[in-house]
C-alpha cells in the first residue's frame, strides 16, 4: 500500500480540512459514522434506482456502484470544495458524496428540469458546477483530457487546487489515458488520477483488457507517483486520497491511485451479467465496504444493530423525501429544446 516511487511520494498521511478536525478518538468515531452513513446512503440510493428503472420511471442506461461505495465516500470525502471532480457514467455515488442533493440527482434521472443537469443528461451525465463536479462522462476515458485541462488552468494560475478524475480499469486501454498521463507528468499537473479498478470492463475481465494487469506499474511508467489502495476499505481510500491530494498541493505533481474494488451488480441495468462466476461475486461480497467499516466500528466504536438500523432508517427517510420532491419537479418545455446549444451571449445558431 505504499507508493512505488517513495522518493517522490509524500512522507506523512495527512488529510485536509476534515482531517484537522479529526483529532480525538471521539471525533474519529464520529467521522467513521459519517462515512458509514454516506455509504449506506449511496447503497440505498442505488437500490431505489433499481426500483425506478424497473418501474420505467428512469430510462436509458443506468450504471450502479453497489459494492464500490467506499470509493465514492472515501475519494470525495478527502477532497475539498475548491477541488474539481470529473467522473464517469457510473457516478451516482460520486455525485452524492460530493454533496449534490439526492433530490436533484433523482430529479435528473427522472428527466425533470429540477435535475442537476435540467434533465438533459440523465443518469450518465450528472453535473453541478457550483460544486465543481464536471460530470458524468459517457465516452470511456473522454473525461481524462478535460480533467488535465482543468488542472492545467490551476497550474497556469498557480492555484493550490486538485483536479480529481475518476475512471475505470477499462479506460486505461484508451489512447486518451495514455496521452493524459503523459501530459500530466510532463507538465506537472495538479491532477489525481483515481482509477476505480473493479476488475471488469463490461464483460471483459482485466486480464483480457490489459497485457500488463499491474495498473500501478503501468501508471508509474509515465513518471507518475502511483500506488494501489484497498477500495473496499473506506478509511484506507480516504487516507490515500488525502495523502495524494496533499502531495499534489505540495507540488509532487500528478498522482495515480488504483482503487481495488468490485461491482456487486451487473455493468448496467441492461446487462444480464453472464460473464462472471457467481462464486467470485459472492467472495467479493464478503468484503462489502459497508460490512468492512461497520465490523470495525462494532469493535472500536461500539456500533450495534440498533445504531446501524437507526442510520439506515434516517437515510431511507431522507431518500424517500428526496424522491417525493424530485417527482414533483416539472419538465423542460419542448420549446426550450434548443436552449443551451449555445450560450445566451454567444448568439450563434
Amino acid at each position, binding site marked *: 500500500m505504499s507508493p512505488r516511487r517513495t522518493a517522490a511520494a509524500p512522507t506523512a498521511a495527512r488529510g485536509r480540512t476534515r482531517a484537522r478536525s479529526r483529532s480525538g478518538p471521539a471525533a474519529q468515531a464520529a467521522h467513521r459514522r459519517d462515512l458509514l452513513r454516506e455509504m449506506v446512503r449511496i447503497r440505498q440510493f442505488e437500490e431505489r434506482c433499481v426500483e425506478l428503472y424497473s418501474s420505467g420511471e428512469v430510462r436509458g442506461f443506468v450504471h450502479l456502484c453497489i459494492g464500490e461505495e467506499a470509493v465514492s465516500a472515501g475519494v470525495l470525502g478527502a477532497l475539498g470544495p475548491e477541488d474539481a471532480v470529473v467522473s464517469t457514467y457510473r457516478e451516482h455515488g460520486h455525485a452524492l458524496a460530493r454533496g449534490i442533493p439526492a433530490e436533484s440527482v433523482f430529479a435528473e434521472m427522472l428527466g425533470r428540469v429540477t435535475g442537476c443537469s435540467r434533465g438533459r443528461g440523465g443518469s450518465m451525465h450528472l453535473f453541478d458546477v457550483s460544486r465543481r463536479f464536471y460530470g458524468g462522462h459517457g*465516452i470511456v476515458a473522454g473525461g481524462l483530457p478535460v480533467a488535465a485541462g482543468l488542472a492545467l488552468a490551476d497550474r497556469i494560475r498557480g492555484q493550490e487546487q486538485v483536479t480529481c478524475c475518476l475512471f475505470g480499469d477499462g479506460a486505461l486501454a484508451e489512447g486518451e489515458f495514455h496521452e493524459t498521463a503523459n501530459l500530466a507528468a510532463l507538465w506537472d499537473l495538479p491532477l489525481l488520477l483515481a482509477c476505480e479498478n473493479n476488475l471488469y470492463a463490461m464483460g471483459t475481465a482485466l486480464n483480457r483488457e490489459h497485457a500488463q494487469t499491474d495498473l500501478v506499474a503501468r501508471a508509474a511508467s509515465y513518471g507518475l507517483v502511483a500506488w494501489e489502495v484497498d477500495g473496499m476499505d473506506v478509511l484506507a481510500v480516504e487516507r490515500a486520497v488525502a495523502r495524494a491530494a496533499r502531495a499534489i498541493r505540495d507540488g509532487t505533481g500528478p498522482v495515480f491511485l488504483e482503487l481495488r474494488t468490485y461491482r456487486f451488480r451487473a455493468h448496467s441495468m441492461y446487462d444480464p451479467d453472464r460473464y462472471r462466476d457467481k462464486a467470485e461475486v459472492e467472495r467479493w461480497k464478503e468484503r462489502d465496504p459497508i460490512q468492512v467499516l461497520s465490523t470495525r466500528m462494532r469493535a472500536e466504536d461500539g456500533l450495534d444493530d440498533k445504531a446501524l438500523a437507526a442510520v439506515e432508517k434516517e437515510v431511507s427517510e431522507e431518500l424517500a423525501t428526496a424522491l417525493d420532491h424530485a417527482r414533483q419537479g416539472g419538465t423542460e418545455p419542448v420549446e426550450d429544446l434548443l436552449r443551451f446549444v449555445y450560450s445566451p451571449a454567444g448568439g450563434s445558431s
Partner: protein
Amino acid sequence: MTGGGARRAESMSYREAMREAMREALAADERVFLMGEDVGRYGGAFGVSLGLVEEFGPERVRDTPLSESGFVGAGIGAAIAGLRPIVEIMTVNFSLLALDQILNNAATLLHMSGGQVAVPLVIRMTTGAGRQLAAQHSHSLEAFYAHIPGIRVLAPATVADARWMLAPALADPDPVIVFEHGSLYNGTDNTADDPGPVDLDSAAVRRPGTDVSLVTYGGSLGKALAAAEQLAAQDQVDAEVVDLRSLRPLDDATVIGSVRRTHRAVIVDEGWRSGGLSAEVAARITEQAFYDLDAPVERACGAEVPVPYAAQLEQAALPQVPDIVAAALRAVG
C-alpha cells in the same frame, strides 16, 4: 414461420437476422472473423453476437480492449493481409475515436498506393436515438461517413436487409460501413427466402405512391411508412416511400425516378439538418430533377442539438410522423 432452414424464409428479429448473417459468414469463409468490444463473452453490447463465441471460439469472435482506434486499425491491417474482418464498434458515437483510421487509412490506402493496398473490411456500428441514452450515446453521424470517398456505407432498415446485406458487404473488396439503428433490433419480420446475390447499390421503393416522395433510410423508414399511411387515410395524399439502403453511393436513379413521378420530395433523416445526408439528397434532387419539381424539396430532420435525455425533449429532437406529414403537406399544398 415456414420453419425451414437458415436459407428459407423465416420470421426473426433484426438482431437475429444480423446474427444469422454473421454466423453464416463465419461458417462459410474461414477468413472471416468478428472483433470488437464485448462481442464474445458478453454477446455484444446489444446482444447481436450472442452465442457466436461459443460456436466459433475466441479467435474468430474476438473481444477487444477499449481501444477503438487500435482495433479498427488492426481490422484494416488484417484485411490488407487477406482476412475478412467484421469489426463492431458499439455505437457511432465512439467511432469518432477510430475515424482517423477509417478515413486516413481504410478509405485512402488503395488510391494512395496506386491501387496496391485494398482493404476488404466490414465495420458494423449502432446508430441513432430514441432510447433516452442522452447525447453521448444517441447521435446519427452517418453523414460523416457518407462524405468519405473510398468506402461504401449501408443502412439496412429491414430485417431482410439485416439478414442479406452482410454477405455482399464481405464480398466487396473495399471497406464497407454498416449502420444499425438501435431502435430496429427488436423488430421482427419475415427475412424472405435467400434472394441470392443482393444488390448493394440500389435504393428500394418500400411503398409506391404518386403525390410525394418520402426519401429516408435506417431508423426513420418506419416513421416514413407510418406518415404515408396517415397521409393516405387523412389527407388523400398518396406518398411513395424510398429507402436509400445505401448512403454511399447514393442511388440517384431510384430517387430521381421517384421524384420525376411525384414532382415533390421530403427527405426524412434523423441526423442533424445542417450538413446532413438530407442536404446531399436534396441537392441532388434539385440538380437532376429541377424542372420536374412542383415545390421545393422539404427536409424533416433531427433538431440541431445534442440529443437530450428527458423523454419529451428527445422526442422533440427527432423527426416524428407529424413532422413528416406536415412537410409532405407543405410540399403538395
